[in-house]
């Protein structure tokens, strides 16, 4: 399937970024279906990350600037075990609302991974190696989903990504409901 490449600026994080850091529990109260109220999730996405670890290697870079609900960054590059902790689907949802299109990490906590795919929020790519020390926040990236590979235009480097494997069909359909409709499991 021919899919449009994902392009944009990198936002780099360390390891074990848990869902309380992605969206602190005090913010889980807003509606995800109300078009205005849901923007608050974009405002507070990644607001639980300690400031010095937000936007590496420099740090002290918020994903979303103060008074804004959308980020200038499009692709999160993180170290191991991204999304560990709670099952809150508000985590992948808030990243999508902030404008994140994909995540690249060597490994994910499974519930976050599943929620990202089944809810069709964004694509969690597994990198072969930990790229959080090779890529800097602000680097211009491109994901070629057919190889699949991550191209760093700022540094002229290309990194291998693992194929999506058994979740590829759900990712390409756009989520579990679209997938189930394509396969006759849920009425159209």
């Amino acid at each position, binding site marked *: 399937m021919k899919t449009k490449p994902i392009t944009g600026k990198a936002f780099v994080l360390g390891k074990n970024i848990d869902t*309380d850091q992605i969206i602190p529990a*005090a913010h889980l109260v807003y509606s995800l279906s109300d078009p205005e109220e849901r923007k608050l999730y974009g405002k507070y996405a990644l607001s639980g990350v300690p400031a010095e670890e937000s936007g590496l290697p420099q740090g002290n870079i918020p994903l979303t600037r103060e008074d804004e609900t959308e980020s200038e960054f499009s692709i999160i590059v993180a170290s191991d075990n991204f999304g560990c902790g709670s099952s809150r689907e508000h985590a*992948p949802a808030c990243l999508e609302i902030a404008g994140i299109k994909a995540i690249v990490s060597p490994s994910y906590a*499974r519930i976050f991974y599943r929620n990202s795919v089944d809810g069709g929020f964004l694509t969690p790519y597994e990198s072969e190696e930990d790229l959080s020390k090779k890529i800097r926040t602000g680097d211009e990236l491109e994901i070629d989903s057919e190889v699949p590979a991550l191209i760093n235009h700022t540094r002229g480097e290309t990194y291998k990504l693992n194929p999506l494997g058994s979740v590829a069909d759900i990712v390409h359909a756009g989520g579990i*409901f679209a997938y189930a409709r394509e396969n006759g499991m*849920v009425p159209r």
Partner: protein
Amino acid sequence: MGMTLTEKILAKHSGRDRVKPGDNVWVNVDVLMTHDVCGPPAISIFHREFGDDAKVWDKDKLVIIPDHYIFTKDKYANRNVDVLRAFAAEQDLPHFYDVGTDRYKGVCHVALPEEGFTRPGEVLFGTDSHTCTAGAFGQFATGIGNTDAAFIMGTGKLWVKVPETMRFVFEGGSLPPYLMAKDIILKIIGDIGVDGATYRTMEFAGPGIQALTMEDRMTLTNMAIEAGGKNGVVEPDGVTEEYVRARTDKPFEKFYSDPDAEYHSEHFYNLEELVPMVAKPHSPDNKATAEELEGVKLDRAYIGSCTGGKLSDFVAAAEIIRGHKLKIDTYIVPATTEIARGLETETLLGTPLIDIFREAGCKIGNASCAACLGGPSDTFGRLNKEEVCISSTNRNYPGRMGSKAAQVYLASPYTVAASAVTGVITDPRIFIQETVI
């Protein structure tokens, strides 16, 4: 080749003779649980996808237990409970435990077993990562997101990738008097790391497990997710049967792992050699013994949550706290209303637990998740500034209990209580030898 307990449950619920790790299967769901944080968005997706007039697949299998943000003035949080209430009325749901009524329960993972919804051999999904707690009853139980929950509401099914199983074998007769299940699981998570069991089953087995009560087993399986586990599970036995039969008449089927089942790995622990453990800030795998941290200064102690707010947790804390004036602010939050009543009826040397806590100067809150996950700013026990807290809860990531500037140490109710008495991290063994033996 035989199958593990988890593989057998998933095979049966997907209509297959056998499954193996890595298989993707669609399973029939026995129970779906949701609460006030994830219920409203799941309901919204359910109606978006199945229509405004859609009905849930089986109203007897959907359980709604508001527990997270209950005693708060936060208008959004209160609105979310209203959403649950309207949905329960619209769908005529028999298992809704509404706030402000006699039916209100508190923390879902403890309420589910109390109300008879955790039955061996079944498949239970919940919109909360600590749904894995229910694996203590020999069932497959795991946490999911809002979209998956909405999918189940409409279809009664969900896809699952069959996990590999890691087996943790407990040797030694029983727990030493100063040790709690929390010490065992903190030790295991510290050994294998917060991603040491990612997408695997953690099966707890061996003679040591048979000596544990249901509440102890729930403490173990509750924190399987803190190692990244898909589920935690214990084979059912007489202890399980007795607990479940006292709470439900529904039939259930017990499954056991075959002697020739294939495991990812096996890990052996002698319970008699373990010592009180602590997880240091800011990760559940940042392990130390309580003894190594003796003297770390604390501002607050907290006993509560699905993993550390059960009646046996408060009995343990009371054994140590009885007769002392506490040096630091100490918060007591029973997981459920049944446990709250237990604080009044359960006695230690003739004194109700609640009086022991009151006389020691504890602050006692209402049954709910409370400050375990921070919550709205007026949440009981929330850490709102640079405070150092020792807690019987299950997570200590940055900001988990409120402020990012706070530091949280995780420990057993014994260790939390001993530390509350002294104001610094304290190995509980000195108190246990004084007061219990």
